[in-house]
């Protein structure tokens, strides 16, 4: 009686779920987990939308706040690293543009990671009362960080116009490095948010790591100033590969891409992702009891 309005493929998918038996046992891993994650994909969108809507309720300039922070950071870094310290930029690109090209992926990683770390705990009321694959919660935080990224991207385009700097063909390859950035963010996010549920100490560690990472990663400076013998070791930080890649795409060949470093960063990102998903899935069943 109620099926008339539903699309036939929806009914088909539901019938499939209906016939599948779910067995709940201690220590049993869910064979249907990834299928369920697809089934709950709308919830990811809704949670991200909720976080974004709430952020700008009862504000006046609303979305502009998303632009002011990266802009000011860029100004400060350019002044300190570019003018005062007189560090070299990549090729002939303006220092500010180089900084911003690195700031873009870094901001995505740091805000995504910091939000994700506390996402499970702040959604405790959902975790303890409703079932859905818990991976959706940190993924929603990353989705919100992604929206911020897109907003800052427009600021980047505006800056390119300002400096009369054309990006060249390599900018089409930007989505590849964006994808690498998402990989590099997702692994640590899952790991830290699962650990934070069990051991609340991590709440204090995270701001410190973010601060530390901001200066260790090549955001305010170019990674070309790192001495040759240390460059490979430096690339263990997965964000080094992502930031270098972003600069290579945006700055139209003014930035050189260090391929061994990129490969290492990619491997570390994938390793962290694997560890993150593994730990998260193992701890997932006990979230409701610990949160």
């Amino acid at each position: 009686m109620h099926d008339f309005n539903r699309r036939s493929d929806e009914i088909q998918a539901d019938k499939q779920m209906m016939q599948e038996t779910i067995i709940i046992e201690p220590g049993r891993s869910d064979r249907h987990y990834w299928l369920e994650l697809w089934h709950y994909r709308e919830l990811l969108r809704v949670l991200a939308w909720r976080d974004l809507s709430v952020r700008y309720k009862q504000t006046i300039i609303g979305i502009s706040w998303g632009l002011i922070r990266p802009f000011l950071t860029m100004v400060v870094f350019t002044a300190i690293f570019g003018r005062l310290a007189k560090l070299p930029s990549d090729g002939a690109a303006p220092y500010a543009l180089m900084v911003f090209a690195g700031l873009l992926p870094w901001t995505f990683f740091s805000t995504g990671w910091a939000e994700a770390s506390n996402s499970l705990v702040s959604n405790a009321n959902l975790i303890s009362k409703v079932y859905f694959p818990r991976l959706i919660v940190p993924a929603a935080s990353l989705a919100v960080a992604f929206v911020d990224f897109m907003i800052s991207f427009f600021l980047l385009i505006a800056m390119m116009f300002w400096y009369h700097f054309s990006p060249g063909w390599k900018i089409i390859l930007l989505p590849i490095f964006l994808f690498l950035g998402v990989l590099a963010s997702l692994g640590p996010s899952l790991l830290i948010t699962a650990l934070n549920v069990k051991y609340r100490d991590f709440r204090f560690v995270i701001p410190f790591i973010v601060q530390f990472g901001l200066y260790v990663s090549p955001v305010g400076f170019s990674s070309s100033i790192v001495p040759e013998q240390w460059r490979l070791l430096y690339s263990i930080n997965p964000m080094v590969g992502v930031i270098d890649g972003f600069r290579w795409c945006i700055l139209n060949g003014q930035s050189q891409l260090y391929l061994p470093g990129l490969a290492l960063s990619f491997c570390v990102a994938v390793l962290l992702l694997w560890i993150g998903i593994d730990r998260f899935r193992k701890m997932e069943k006990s979230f409701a009891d610990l949160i």
Partner: protein
Amino acid sequence: MSDTIISVQNLSKRYLLGHQSAPPHSTLREVIVRESGNFIRNAFDLFRGRQIIQGDEVEEFWALKNINFDVKRGEVIGIIGRNGAGKSTLLKILSRITEPTEGRVTLRGRVASLLEVGTGFHAELTGRENIFLNGAILGMTQQEVRRKFDEIVAFAEVERFLDTPVKRYSSGMYVRLAFAVAAHLEPEILIVDEVLAVGDADFQKKCLGKMGDVAHDEGRTVLFVSHNIAAIGELTDRALLLESGSVAAIGETSQVISSYVSRGRAAAAYVRPVENAARGPHISRAEIVTSDLNGVHQFGEAMEVKFWIRHDAPMAKACFSFQIINQFQQATVHAWALYPAVRFGNQEGVSLLRCKFPSLRLNIGQFYLRANLSEPPGGDLYETLDGICPFEVIQTEAARLWPWHPSDCAYHEHWDWTLEPSTAQSKVG
């Protein structure tokens, strides 16, 4: 293929509780020893990946122990039990929110759970936005929510306030909206945990009505936890009684309810506390003899109320009356024993007054007594006792034909219908 949609086998759930040991004198040395012991234990637990418990001692608490039962497709099962019996824990395990410690559950259908109304509601978002948010959280697709949007708003009666942030809603509006979204879920298995006891009486009736539709008209499998025994009796076919984590009874609803009400509930009696000794005539004890045990009375059965009146000196023209007061503070029955029709208290000692009701036809609900001992009207009032002898009237059979609710009426009178044949229509002149 069997029709079993839920199968629970040997289900157990254990929690770890921490306790602070409270030594009488805590010297610094004792504190250091105790705290380092805790630290070492926590470090070992951390190492082995176990849960870290705050406290000096750790105790095992089994919230559920060896639960076994099956549910067939389309059945409506009630789960009852006292607070702390393990009902919510069982529902959490069935909803996959928490994992069992032992045992296994097999589900052959999609489950939607209502463990709390307004899960995920965000105070800053408007009513409209929260409907979509809550719907998505409960597992409805956005398309489904859009399709049912008007129905949901009509059920909640908040149309005017849809675009106001929910933080401005009254508590009644909040729960109405929350329940309205949840009431329009369409899963195969629906699990509901005590969420119907919200809102005013009218809304409760509406919620129960909706639950009734879901259970009986739509043919879903429903697991329903409630403290409202009347609702359980009315909506469910079978029931499960949980006591301290184990199944105490399972079977046909009325039998399980009788089993429940006869356990550990206080009898409908009053004994005067020793410290309230009075000089003059007073009521020393009161008792109601109900049809079932422990203060529960079946509608229509005979009931007897007994009062022991102690008087150290003979009373002249003593009068006694009592009222039966319902949960709405209305006096539904007023019985009196007035001089000279009933004479008591002529000699010193204790008089036992018994009042018999051949068939008590009060509507279902909770009641108590207010008793008055006095001289004839116009004279002295010796004593009034209020709020004594709580008892409950229940009705398990006839409620199936028409769902009874305590607010429907105070009393079910006897009535008789006859039909007059219709007279021929007179022509309009």
